[in-house]
């Protein structure tokens, strides 16, 4: 059975701090997505990682993918309150965007 394990589930941090969210998965895949979800909203695509060693950065967020370790990370640099949301990783298992999602990380950045 495919597993996508995301940790931590909850993250409370002060503004200005750095932190990393981890996403481990149990199947062979070289396509991984990160999404943000605000309360009551649909998913917002953050990053699409399509190969081993892929690294993408947007603002205070940086995502990386290690397909050999079956691990992706989402690093937050100098967090700000506006980053408060739930973050999901999603593994594409058939290269046609058939996703298995991680459990999500609810991030709360305290002013």
């Amino acid at each position, binding site marked *: 059975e495919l597993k996508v394990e995301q940790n931590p589930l909850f993250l409370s941090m002060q503004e200005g701090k750095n932190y990393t969210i981890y996403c481990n998965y149990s199947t062979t895949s070289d396509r991984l997505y990160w999404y943000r979800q605000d309360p009551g909203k*649909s998913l917002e695509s953050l990053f699409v990682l399509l190969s081993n060693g892929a690294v993408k950065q947007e603002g205070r967020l940086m995502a990386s993918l290690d397909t050999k370790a079956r691990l992706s990370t989402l690093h937050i640099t100098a967090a700000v309150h506006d980053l408060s949301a739930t973050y999901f990783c*999603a593994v594409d298992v058939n290269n*046609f*965007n058939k*996703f298995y999602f991680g459990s*999500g990380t609810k991030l709360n950045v305290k002013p």
Partner: protein
Amino acid sequence: SAVISQKPSRDICQRGTSLTIQCQVDSQVTMMFWYRQQPGQSLTLIATANQGSEATYESGFVIDKFPISRPNLTFSTLTVSNMSPEDSSIYLCSVGWTEAFFGQGTRLTVV
């Protein structure tokens, strides 16, 4: 990119009834996916809908409970049958090529 129209956006239904959710895409796509997001939870893949063939269901989901139609390459429906309060969730459709696109979701409350 793709624009996905999902209807209804929300509904409140009586237990024992059924609701059909529609997903319309502005481009032709081979695969469409249906997900469920229970309150406070992550997204779980229900099934893959292929045009011209039966939908493929994930473990824990059955056709009698979640019948799916895919009459053409731009449209699909998901029916939630014989609803109970446990079916209260957000249901989302998704399509994708090199990038995935999600509908805005249908927020279903069963009373």
